[in-house]
């Protein structure tokens, strides 16, 4: 497990560093179209390791720049989701009673809507959201599962001795929540964040593949796959390589998340689809 | 003299974890004759349950029965059998019942299915015949309305009934040997007595031998013919039941006896042997009981005591057997601590 976690963090670190250094690492300009006839759809070669696309753009360079979009969308959306989910779950769990019941029914309902369909509806109605709004929408639809986990933990912790002691000493509700309870929920949050990043990368890629996510001229890994999807039989390299990058990143995030979870709580080692899809 | 039904000799079951070796059972030998009841007595950690599981070869990795060990049953060396041959013995010639009848039964199968399964696996009885034998066996264990009970699930039965189901499951093929690992520990006192009576009655009816694993000398006194006392993975005393109760030789046995709740004592004040069984990864040198023994002298720290013969069919792993005078020397008569409760 520890070894896996090491490899996973190494992979993530490499991808992040390459994305940060994109202008220096990428061999070509990702949007330059040097020769739309002569350099179109070139198979992978020494000068174009990932080949070129139908606009003669270098796929490797596009993937390197695409990493910036894919990773930052995933990281920011996950940050929003984690914040919302933690606050919502903590309030439900801490306040309890009827408020809790209502808040949790809402979450139940939200969890039963296939997230992608909801996103498709939103993105279709708003047609071409700017990147920052796409991030907000991804974040705002991704916190339901976490809120349920946080709520369960806060609920069980509310009656523990040290919380009761803090309350007896006259600490205020928000203070107890932020100083005493939330730090103990941190492991859950960290695991959810790690798994969430991997999940949002895949989700955003899907939406971009449908043309609903990242809008040109920006391109995420999903957009690049979309560039090649219609000619998969003829120019498979356009879609293959960005997909491999997505899989690699997602595996690294999942492995790291699993390892962290195992480290925090040895009993729990299964990842359920439900947790990931919410 | 005929061969005993079961003959365990120099049984060693070790658990390997990297460099660390836990010697849970460390050179145990005893026999069980046909039809008799032998009790293996000891605290938790003494190795008695591991001994029981070893006989059926139910030790899972990282546990391992070491090579010099021998377990002979009906003239066959069990440790030499293939896995397939061993399976024809388990549940068929040697059966086992466990302490916790709730968790030892499969929660999602009816009790009838679980009993009939034994018949189906070991004989070529039809599904219907196997079910009928399961019902018969349930009736034999004194369960009322056995046909209805057979279609119920373990959670629908009381603790005592579940243990009757376990017994029915173990005895449905009339095994030659029943290993009963703390069969009454998890039950109410009144139910305990009923289950012990049932075991004795069935033992007479079916003519099987019983190897009873227990920490409770009270149970031993009721049912056992012979007793093996275990401590620290070893046999420390071996005797017939009457001999053991009349003249216990090993200080550990003495301690167990004084720890027995008695009618003439205030039930609130249980006597316990001070200290705990040392970890099986680091048995002390010399005598393994010496840290808790009030007789202990320097010899006990340096020399590991063998099983000294101390009478007819009576052995004790204590140097007192050869230095009996030390017993009468002035010492606090076995420092038993009197606690307020257990």
């Amino acid at each position: 497990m520890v070894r896996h976690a090491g490899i996973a963090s190494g992979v993530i670190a490499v991808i992040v560093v390459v994305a940060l250094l994109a202008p220096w690492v990428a061999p070509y300009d990702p949007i330059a179209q040097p020769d739309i006839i002569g350099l179109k759809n070139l198979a992978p070669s020494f000068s174009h390791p990932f080949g070129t696309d139908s606009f003669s753009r270098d796929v490797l360079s596009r993937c390197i720049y695409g990493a910036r979009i894919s990773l930052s969308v995933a990281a920011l959306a996950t940050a929003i989701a984690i914040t919302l989910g933690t606050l919502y779950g903590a309030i439900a769990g801490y306040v309890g009673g009827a408020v809790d019941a209502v808040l949790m029914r809402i979450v139940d309902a939200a969890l039963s809507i296939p997230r992608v369909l909801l996103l498709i509806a939103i993105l279709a109605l708003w047609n071409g959201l700017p990147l920052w709004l796409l991030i907000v929408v991804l974040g705002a639809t991704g916190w339901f599962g976490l809120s349920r986990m946080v709520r369960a933990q806060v609920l069980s912790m509310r009656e523990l001795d040290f919380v009761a002691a803090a309350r007896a000493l006259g600490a205020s509700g928000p203070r107890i929540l932020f100083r005493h309870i939330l730090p103990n929920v941190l492991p859950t949050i960290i695991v959810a964040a790690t798994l969430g990043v991997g999940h949002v990368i895949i989700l955003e890629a899907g939406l971009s593949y449908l043309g609903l996510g990242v809008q040109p001229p920006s391109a995420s890994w999903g957009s690049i796959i979309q560039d090649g999807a219609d000619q998969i039989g003829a120019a498979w390299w356009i879609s293959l390589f960005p997909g491999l990058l997505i899989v690699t990143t997602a595996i690294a995030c999942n492995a790291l998340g699993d390892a962290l979870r195992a480290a925090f709580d040895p009993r729990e080692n299964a990842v359920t689809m439900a947790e990931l899809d919410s | 003299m005929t061969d005993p039904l079961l003959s365990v000799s120099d049984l060693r079951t070790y658990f390997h974890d990297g460099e660390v070796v836990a010697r849970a059972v460390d050179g145990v030998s005893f026999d069980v004759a046909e039809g008799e009841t032998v009790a293996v007595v000891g605290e938790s950690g003494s190795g008695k349950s591991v001994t029981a599981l070893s006989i059926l070869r139910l030790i899972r990795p990282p546990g391992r029965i070491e090579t010099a060990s021998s377990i002979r049953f009906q003239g066959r060396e069990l440790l030499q059998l293939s896995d397939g041959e061993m399976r024809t013995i388990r549940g068929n010639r040697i059966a086992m019942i466990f302490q916790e009848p709730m968790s030892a039964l499969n929660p999602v199968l009816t009790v009838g299915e679980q009993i009939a399964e034994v018949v189906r696996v070991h004989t070529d009885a039809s599904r219907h015949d196997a079910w009928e034998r399961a019902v018969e066996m349930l009736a034999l264990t004194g369960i009322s309305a056995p046909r209805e009970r057979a279609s119920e699930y373990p959670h629908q039965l009381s603790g005592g009934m579940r243990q009757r189901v376990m017994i029915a499951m173990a005895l449905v093929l009339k095994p030659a040997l029943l290993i009963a690992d703390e069969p009454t520990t998890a039950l109410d006192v009144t139910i305990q007595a009923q289950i012990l009576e049932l075991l004795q009655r069935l033992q007479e009816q079916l003519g099987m031998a019983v190897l009873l694993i227990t920490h409770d000398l009270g149970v031993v006194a009721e049912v056992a013919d012979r007793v093996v006392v275990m401590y620290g993975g070893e046999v420390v005393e071996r005797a017939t039941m009457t001999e053991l109760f009349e003249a216990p030789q090993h200080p550990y046995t003495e301690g167990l006896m004084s720890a027995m709740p008695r009618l003439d004592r205030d039930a609130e004040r249980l006597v316990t042997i001070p200290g705990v069984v040392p970890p099986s990864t680091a048995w002390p040198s010399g005598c393994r009981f010496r840290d808790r023994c009030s007789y202990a002298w320097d010899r006990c720290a340096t020399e590991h005591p063998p099983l000294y013969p101390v009478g007819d069919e009576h052995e004790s792993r204590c140097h007192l057997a050869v230095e009996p005078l030390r017993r009468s020397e002035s010492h606090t008569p076995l420092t038993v601590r009197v606690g307020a409760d257990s």
Partner: protein
Amino acid sequence: MELAGRRSVVGTVVSRLLQAIIVVAIVTTIVFVLIHIAPGDPFTSAMDNPNVTEAMRARWRAMYGLDQPLLEQYVRYLSNVARGNFGWSFSMHRPVIDVLKDALPNTLLLAGTALVLGFAGGIGLAVIQATRPGSRTDRTLGAGSMFFYAMPDFWLALMMMLIFAYWLPWFPVAGAVDPVMHEYMGPLAALADRLKHLALPAITLALLSGAAVARYQRAELLRVLPDDFVRTARAKGLSERRVMWVHVLRNALIPTISLLGLSLPVLFTGAVFIERVFAWPGMGWVILNGVATRDYPLVTAGVIVAAATVTLGSLGADLLYSVADPRIRGR
């Protein structure tokens, strides 16, 4: 689940059915709110036709009640949805409900096939893995399921298409049937044609759900393995295979049934992408076509029907769960 044990199965069904209806109502409300806070209305974009005059748009708005107060629109929307009246599909020139009626069976066929294949395969792999945890087989299969688990649905679909339709031309590239020949085929040939078209999308979806099932089921099996009754089963003289498949698996399967319900949204989502890649004329394909043609009545109705289907499926899984576990099943 504690509560469910004390209630009768009928009571559970009724209360879960009510919950399902509430969920669908909430989904409908969310969709209604989305439509109304979205920029423009269906007619500004769907009717970009220069021949359509502003007066015609106004008449349409009046016809569809878009000039009414919001609350009134909301009530009418809810009651329309409840009666299955989802309006007119501009792109298909038919009532939305008819479009969905054609599409839903295709999605159910695809998702159902994938569900069966995925669960059977995933559970089988998990048993093989859990029989010898930590072995080379276990680790190899574990790496395999981790790989597919981390894969974007549409990308796997593209790769499957690339390998098994282009490089190895074993299966047709797209569609539910052969577009030209299907009509002229005899019943057997027509069935074979359907199966051939179903194979790639269904296997793709099954790989994705099977990977998740295998991971979950393996963990459940390993959780059950140390239980006392497993030792009892061994003490009865059962073979390791029988211990695993009968005693351990029966117990470890029960939580997997709840996974069945939870996996339906994932399955449906996967179907959306896979239908798109393979041009499989199901709900996802229809919804995405609606997106491309800005056919909002179709898109929103598709989302509502999909959510309702998933909710009903989860309800079914819950009921199955209460039947499968004798400790919950009422006496």
